[in-house]
């Protein structure tokens, strides 16, 4: 079943998102295809989180059209999302992963093996029986990653997953993300950390005030931004 359905390319066609009089996303048209990780950068409030929610299908656009592999129904079959502050279900780490596997339709008989493999993959094997809510922030993010990977996604959306983590925990999360990317999962990740962009990104989407201002390969974006806003952002100026 999974092999026959694909969510890629993920296409936005003239998509806008309004909340009352406020424009959150403004006429975005873009296409996401398999390949190296895409990092969405931009100042706070530029619409990164809203864009990710739209890509996931959690929010419907007020104008324009979103399609996954040519389909406009939004059932999240082969995509997963990692929220900035993921919700830990009140059960053990292993049970959190088992829950995600069950929701993804993994047969009961295969779950135990896959739980162990996923926990191993995110480095939480030894904490399998620990209640998820008593894990540290970095461990919780890694557990959420294991849950996301349990869906066997084709595209993985991440919303600043390391925003509140220390460098060691950040490295743990980035390693898992890179491994996922190498295994062929399309990564779309919001970040405000230019170092992280350098370490992970294949291409960059730069957003300001709900508009996509620039989209370029990482090196080109970092070295030769084509818009004054991007140049200012890269200099560390406040972009309003």
């Amino acid at each position, binding site marked *: 079943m999974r092999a026959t359905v694909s969510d890629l390319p993920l296409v936005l066609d003239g998509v806008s998102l309004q909340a009352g009089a406020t424009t959150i996303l403004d006429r975005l048209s873009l296409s996401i295809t398999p390949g190296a990780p895409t990092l969405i950068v931009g100042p706070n409030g530029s619409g990164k989180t809203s864009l990710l929610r739209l890509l996931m299908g*959690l929010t419907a656009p007020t104008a324009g059209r979103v399609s996954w592999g040519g389909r406009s129904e939004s059932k999240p*079959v082969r995509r997963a999302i990692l929220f900035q502050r993921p919700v830990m279900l*009140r059960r053990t780490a292993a049970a959190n992963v088992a829950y995600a596997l069950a929701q993804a339709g993994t047969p009961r008989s295969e779950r135990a093996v896959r739980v162990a493999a996923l926990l191993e993959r995110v480095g939480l094997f030894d904490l399998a029986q620990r209640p998820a*809510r008593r894990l540290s922030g970095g461990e919780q993010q890694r557990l959420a990653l294991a849950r996301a990977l349990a*869906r066997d996604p084709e595209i993985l959306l991440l919303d600043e997953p390391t925003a509140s983590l220390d460098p060691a925990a950040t490295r743990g999360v980035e390693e898992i993300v890179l491994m996922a990317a190498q295994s062929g999962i399309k990564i779309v990740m919001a970040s405000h950390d230019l170092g992280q962009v350098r370490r992970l990104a294949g291409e960059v989407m730069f957003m300001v005030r709900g508009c996509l201002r620039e989209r370029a390969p990482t090196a080109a974006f970092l070295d030769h931004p084509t818009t004054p806003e991007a140049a200012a952002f890269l200099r560390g100026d406040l972009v309003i």
Partner: protein
Amino acid sequence: MSDQLSAWQLILTGDAALFAIVWLSLAVSLSAVALAALIGMPLGALVALTRFPGRSVLVVLLNAMMGLPPVVVGLAVYLLLSRSGPLGSMGILFTPTAMIIAQTILIVPIIAALTRQTIEDLWAEYRDELTAMDVSQAGRIATLLWDARFSLLTALLAGFGRAAAEVGAVMIVGGNIDGFTRTMTTAVALETSKGNLPLAMGLGLVLVAIVLAINAAAWGTRVWSERQAS
């Protein structure tokens, strides 16, 4: 129970009739809580998760029904179960089963209303995550109920407190039959009407002690299991 004895003497001497009354009270009220939980928790969770016309009316109604007068519920169940009523052929009026039914009706709104509030708050936190995992409606309800289990214990205790304390409904549908449908509360009412105020007060204190013990046990269980798997 001999009227000459005080409640404390009855306890100390292990009076069989007193223990039968305590057992019946607990059996009836705990059964009613269990049944009401089976009905009220999924109902409360369903109301928390769904949006439909008239929903706020239902929410207000559920909250208001937490204050259902026990005698009114008792009377309604009595009329239903009476031989002259629609369910009379079941022949369960004046039995513990009838008392369980009446108390269940009495506490379903309490458990449903408190569950709705708890689940609605938790749903605000879980909505994105569960939607992203494509969890079905039934799955959402089960997940939220399970993850709210420690908070929902409070709803169960509120229901139990109400069931154990009420006298109006069990008196009407049970009939306060000695050795068969006499509970702690109807025994207190009876001893009061016999002018046996010390014994009535003593029985009342026994009831309070039992309710206190059950709440303490539930609280202890909650603290212990939260430590095990929060």
